[in-house]
């Protein structure tokens, strides 16, 4: 069953059609990857789904509910979370504080004006638990800007998860990583995919092909093809149009 | 914000004037030191604009105050020297109140003077009343300072707008016509100008053609001028002051309004005329005082002014100068009469006192029940540039009325000043 449906989703930037009447269904519990050359509209698609920008036409349905015009935080509360290609963290804050803020949002204490923040035991415990779970323990007090890039990548995903989403959108989670870290992330994603639905934009084909249950290929804002790794690998249109001979699908 | 305009000051005279201002700014040295120097002087705190829109008016009144203080240089008061401590009120009532508080609270000064704009006068009056100091409002013309804001500790030197219109309006009815249109600066002082004019016009059976209320800080009057022109009045009766007045005069000249109607200023200061320059303003004005009047002592006073302030921005004393002079002089004389340096005693010495050497055609009577200085004021007609014998000779006096005939009576203005300080 599709957890997320887009129907004729369209977005123009000036004269450019970034996403062009895209109709798509994302299967619950699967890991779906979106691939396509630069400018294919992948990030725009993410921005449309998560309410950062509004489509010119079409709509997005989450669990059958129209979420097209909901504000970001409403979409997050309904269970869609995302990470960003360009790291989007609270850079001046420590790792602990980053996660803490996410946990607090999820537990809904933000409206408390007069209680001391330090006294929120459940938030603190959950924060420690999550940090440990994702292998970041020991670095709690390090300001995020001083963390290694790999750790920050992990953190980017970690704090997206504090919202306890049922659908997580990951925008190039391995972008800028060396192969060792990349492996670490792939493992991580595989583990995650057992718990929730993932939608991943990824350039690293090795990662895509090894982890995806389902692959969506976009080209110039349109849906070019979709299917399993094998089907995509075998698809001549994808080979020709998308890769243009530059890449080979290994 | 009474009647202020701006003054053309050449760079050279400005520098000299500024130097004069520095001489007055006595607050530089901490009072502890100052007190060590002289045997317990009588201090007078001057709260007067040295910056902001009315800096030029403030300077002119301070020159007069200084002249009065210097008269007591040799003999002193109660055997004590006299010192003026000057603070800049920036033409902002909040700042004025702060400076006044500083003077009475830190420097323990008992006597305050100054206040070119009504809001400053009200706020300084408030401070004086609360701290039990004596405040002489030297240069604000609003009616309210001796009415709703009347206080036991506050005295008002200049004539108010009721006196202005009762002096001027009969002349207009007689010589100009009975169809009037009003420009009213949209605040206390402006309203009172138009209010008194209307009362007199109505009594005379004239025609009220309407009124334009002009917001403060209006830069462009063209729309108002268009409206006034459409009414075709005999007289355009203007109660507009502050920085706006200069712009208004400029634009009346631009639109040629003076050719179509008689321009009437219910109050104008020489500073305003000086700023706009000769030939720009034709009309009939009310002035508190004019340096060419033939009253006893005026010639000597003008000569003394010219000698004392050769580099002053305006070469002749203005009404502001006179009021500043009279304010300080009468205050010091009252201290002398009281025989002691005590606010209540000095208030009592001022109340009901008559001043013969007023430099106007009638003596000053200081009314005990509203603390108003009652004295004459003047109606003048502008001179054409070729009739002027020098650049300050803007006008000829066409009528004057004694203060007692124009001032509000007790029935018209029933006020209660409350108890004396400390009682």
């Amino acid at each position, binding site marked *: 069953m599709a957890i997320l449906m887009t129907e004729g989703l369209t977005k123009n930037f000036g004269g450019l059609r970034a996403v062009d009447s895209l109709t798509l269904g994302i299967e619950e519990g699967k890991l779906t990857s979106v691939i396509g050359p630069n400018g294919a509209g992948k990030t725009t698609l993410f921005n449309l789904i998560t309410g950062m920008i509004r489509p010119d036409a079409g709509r997005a349905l989450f669990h059958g509910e129209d979420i097209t015009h909901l504000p970001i935080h409403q979409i997050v509360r309904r269970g869609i979370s995302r990470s960003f290609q360009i790291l989007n963290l609270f850079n001046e804050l420590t790792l602990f504080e980053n996660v803490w803020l996410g946990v607090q949002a999820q537990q809904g204490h933000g409206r408390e004006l007069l209680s001391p923040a330090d006294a929120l035991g459940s938030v603190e415990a959950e924060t420690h638990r999550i940090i440990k779970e994702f292998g970041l323990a020991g670095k709690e007090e390090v300001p995020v800007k001083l963390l290694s890039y790999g750790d920050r990548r992990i953190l980017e995903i970690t704090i997206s998860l504090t919202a306890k989403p049922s659908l997580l959108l990951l925008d190039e989670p391995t972008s800028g990583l060396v192969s060792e870290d990349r492996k670490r992330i792939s493992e991580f994603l595989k583990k995650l995919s057992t718990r929730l639905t993932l939608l991943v934009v990824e350039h690293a084909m090795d990662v895509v092909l090894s982890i995806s249950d389902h692959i969506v290929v976009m080209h110039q804002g349109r849906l070019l093809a979709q299917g399993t790794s094998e089907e995509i690998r075998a698809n001549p249109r994808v080979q020709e149009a998308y890769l243009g001979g530059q890449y080979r699908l290994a | 914000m009474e009647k202020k305009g701006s003054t053309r000051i050449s760079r050279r005279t400005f520098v000299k004037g500024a130097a004069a201002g520095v001489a007055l700014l006595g607050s530089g040295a901490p009072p502890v030191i100052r007190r060590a120097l002289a045997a317990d002087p009588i201090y007078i705190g001057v709260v007067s604009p040295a910056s902001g*829109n009315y800096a030029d008016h403030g300077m002119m009144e301070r020159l007069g105050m200084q002249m009065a203080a210097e008269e007591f240089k040799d003999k002193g008061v109660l055997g004590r020297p006299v010192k003026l401590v000057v603070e800049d009120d920036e033409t902002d009532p909040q700042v004025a109140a702060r400076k006044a508080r500083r003077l009475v609270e830190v420097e323990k000064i008992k006597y305050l003077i100054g206040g070119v704009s009504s809001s400053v006068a009200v706020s300084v009056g408030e401070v004086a009343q609360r701290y039990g100091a004596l405040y002489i409002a030297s240069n604000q013309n609003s009616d309210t300072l001796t009415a709703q804001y009347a206080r036991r500790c506050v005295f008002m030197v200049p004539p108010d707008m009721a006196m202005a219109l009762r002096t001027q309006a009969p002349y207009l009815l007689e010589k100009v016509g009975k169809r009037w249109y009003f420009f009213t600066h949209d605040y206390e002082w402006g309203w009172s100008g138009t209010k008194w004019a209307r009362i007199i016009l109505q009594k005379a059976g004239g025609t009220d053609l309407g009124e334009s209320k002009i917001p403060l800080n209006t830069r462009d009057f063209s729309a108002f001028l268009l409206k006034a*022109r459409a009414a075709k009045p005999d007289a355009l009766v203007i109660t507009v002051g502050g920085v706006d007045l200069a712009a208004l005069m400029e634009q009346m000249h631009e639109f040629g309004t003076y050719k179509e109607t008689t321009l009437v200023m219910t109050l104008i200061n020489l500073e305003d005329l000086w700023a706009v320059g000769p030939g720009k303003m034709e009309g009939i004005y009310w002035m508190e005082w004019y340096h060419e009047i033939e009253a006893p002592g005026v010639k000597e006073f003008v000569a003394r002014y010219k000698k004392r302030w050769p580099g002053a921005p305006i070469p002749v004393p203005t009404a502001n100068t006179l009021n500043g002079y009279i304010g300080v002089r009468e205050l010091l004389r009252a201290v002398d009469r009281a025989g002691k340096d005590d606010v209540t005693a000095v208030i009592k010495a001022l109340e009901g006192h008559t001043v013969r050497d007023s430099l106007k055609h009638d003596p000053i009577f200081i009314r005990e029940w509203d603390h108003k200085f009652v004295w004459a004021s003047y109606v003048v007609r502008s001179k054409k540039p070729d009739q002027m014998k020098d650049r300050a000779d803007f006008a000829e006096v066409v009528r004057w009325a004694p203060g007692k005939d124009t001032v509000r009576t007790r029935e018209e203005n029933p006020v209660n000043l409350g108890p004396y300080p400390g009682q």
Partner: protein
Amino acid sequence: MTEFLSFLMNGVVLGLIFAVVALGFTLILGVMQVINFTHGILFALGAYFAFSMQKHVGFWLALILAPLLVGVVGWLLERLVIHRTYGGNPLFGLLLTFGLAMALEEVIRMVWGKAGYSVAAPRFAAGSLDLGFMIYSKYRLLLAALAILIILLVWLFLEKTPYGAIIKAGASDAEMVMALGKNLPRMRTFVFAIGSVLAGVAGVIAAPIWSVRPTIGTAILMPAFVIVVLGGIGSFWGSVLAGLIVGVSTSVSVMFWAQISDIIPYVIMTAVLLFRPRGLMGEKSVLEV
């Protein structure tokens, strides 16, 4: 009706001056992302320079020279201090220019004195003209013509010259300008100078009707704010349109309820913001992110 026409026309003339001031302001705001509080002072400087020059060189030459001189002042301000705030906290540029404006206003007081001066209109434009349906000030007609000319020149510059294209690109994307291989710092200085010239020229032409005094700069600044917010940041025609709206609404409201004439623009602005948060012609701008 005739009366209404004359108020309308008067408002248009006022609006045109406002528009020229606001154009310079929004240009600097759009490209540099600096709320330039010195804009009012540059306006005042234009008026003062013209006042001092006219005695020697006459109206027309002063009309050219004074704004250029203001442009030089703007250029110096930008080169010496303001450029250091680019890209930082937007508050820094704002406070820096706020302080500069304060200091420069005092400098004006020190140089030209605390009081105001009246500035004569050129002799050929003094007095009023009978237009048949109304009598109107000749100088204001001249002023309207000059303002329209200036607005057109700015428009031509932005639309028809390559430099204009870069400025427009620079307003939306600094990186793009870099990518075009242009010298961004130099372009910014140039734009700042252009903005200053616009402030200066507005000051020059407005001086004869408003007369000059140190506070004149502060007085013109607030209408500029309102116009830019009302028209939409960075929008050329938005500024012109909003300038006219402010001018006309101020003037026409005098006919009906004069006391509120200076509140009217703010009321319009607030109402517009409720329904169009980016102003009349504003688009989603980089400034918001």
